[in-house]
């Protein structure tokens, strides 16, 4: 791997974001709106529910972490889609750039864009609604790690789908987090779900994060085993996603799709 090539992909995305308010605004606007919406919902719930239970760390904390995961995933697919929209595949893939360098560049770009969102969310949630990451203790680090890795995995899978099936499949990529959320137990314990959904939930790394988040708020110790399992599962997803992307890329090179991508098919 050559770092300068990975840096080139990051720099390309930085140039695009820097020069475009339409790209800067979504980095923080939607997560800020989410914080306000869910912040006031939690305040209202605190006001009408039995005294003693604080909804802020349970609901607002969950929304914050879920939005972070979504930003990571969308950060990767957005950086990838920039190459789709500017028809840049031929220019990029006819260079010495290796697929690992390209994907690393997408991930690094996403780290930057998702950090902006995370910081904005943290500032709003703590300043307006008194949410503190300290309330989760040291477990916040594996929480963020699991969600980051799973976001990376789904982002790469999303990019692979668009590379394989063409730009029109973009509509399918953006709602993936919404598709996953009912199974991940973001807002309710996994035990609430029917058995078949619980099986799916057990294969999703975020479900281990949100189960532990609720356990900590209820005054229980986090399950170290569950968190380790969540990290391992997330790493497996990342590896599978990379394997899938490389497979799709090789198929595209074999079939001629990379060279004629805008056609969406070579048949």
């Amino acid at each position, binding site marked *: 791997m*050559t770092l*300068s*090539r990975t*840096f*080139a992909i990051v*720099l*390309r995305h930085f*140039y*695009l974001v820097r*020069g*475009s308010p339409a790209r800067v605004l979504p980095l923080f606007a939607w997560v800020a709106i989410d914080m306000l919406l869910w912040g006031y919902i939690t305040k209202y719930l605190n006001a009408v529910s039995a005294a003693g239970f604080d909804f802020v760390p349970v609901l607002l904390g969950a929304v914050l972490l879920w939005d972070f995961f979504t930003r990571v995933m969308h950060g990767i697919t957005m950086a990838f889609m*920039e190459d789709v929209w*500017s*028809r*840049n*595949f*031929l*220019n*990029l*893939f*006819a*260079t*010495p*750039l*290796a697929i690992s360098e390209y994907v690393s560049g997408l991930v690094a770009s996403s780290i930057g864009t998702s950090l902006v969102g995370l910081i904005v969310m943290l500032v709003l949630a703590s300043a307006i609604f008194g949410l503190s990451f300290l309330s989760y203790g040291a477990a916040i680090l594996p929480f963020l790690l699991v969600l980051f890795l799973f976001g990376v995995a789904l982002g790469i899978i999303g990019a692979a789908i668009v590379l394989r099936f063409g730009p029109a499949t973009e509509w399918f990529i953006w709602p993936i987090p919404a598709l996953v959320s009912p199974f991940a137990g973001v807002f309710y314990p996994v035990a609430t779900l029917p058995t078949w959904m619980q099986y799916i939930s057990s294969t999703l790394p975020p479900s281990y994060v949100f189960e532990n988040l609720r356990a900590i708020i209820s005054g229980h110790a986090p399950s170290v085993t569950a968190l380790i399992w969540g990290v391992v599962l997330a790493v497996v997803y990342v590896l599978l996603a990379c394997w899938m992307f490389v497979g799709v890329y*090789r198929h595209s*090179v*074999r079939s*001629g799709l*990379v*060279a004629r991508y805008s056609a969406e098919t*070579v048949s």
Partner: protein
Amino acid sequence: MPNVLSVENLSKKYGDTIAVDGISFEVERNEIVGLLGPNGAGKTTTINMVLSVLEPTSGSIRIEGIDVARQRSQALDCTNFAAVYAPLPGNLTVYQNLHVFGLIYGVKHLSARIESLLEQFELERFRNLKSGVLSSGEQTRLCLAKAMLNQPHLLLLDEPTASLDPATARDIRTKIREFAMRGLCGVLWTSHNMYEVADVCDRVLFLSHGKIMLEGDPKTLPQDHGKSTLEELFIAVAREPLTLERV
């Protein structure tokens, strides 16, 4: 020292359709080779395989003796291309595009190299303009500047002057010619402008139905085959390739 480009028995099939049919050729140092042929003859398919964005069905491609299939990054390190159908991203400025691709190609002293290319291709006044707002001729010059960034040993040019006015096209031909003669570079050039080909190329390959039908010096090849100009020969190859195959 190996040839800049060696292609052996290269084929590409899409199902039952044969796009490139077992072609072999070389490009030597300081040589400009014209790859000619009618639309659909297999020129762009061949270039795409050399650039490693299309996997051959069979055959081998070596750039500077490096097998493209096995050591893709090393082979493409010393290669570059410009094609009329591959403009640089229009949402980056001229400078940004050159900077990003310069990093990808690992160009040393990148800023100085970019400045030199901006001057050489008369792009200085556009440096902070988005590439998408440039005229097609200016975009072509930008693509050529990108293609020269890493001072490639193999330069692939797919109709590089297609959208240039005659005066600019002549200047660009001169620049590419000088570039090819100065260093260790070899150029593979496709064009439908036979005047340009005769002017620039040391050798031409006529491709039709995925096969190389003729090969030779563009200045003497028409007479060798009973035609008065390269254009006449081109039309004959395009219309009756089988007749010429027997010549």
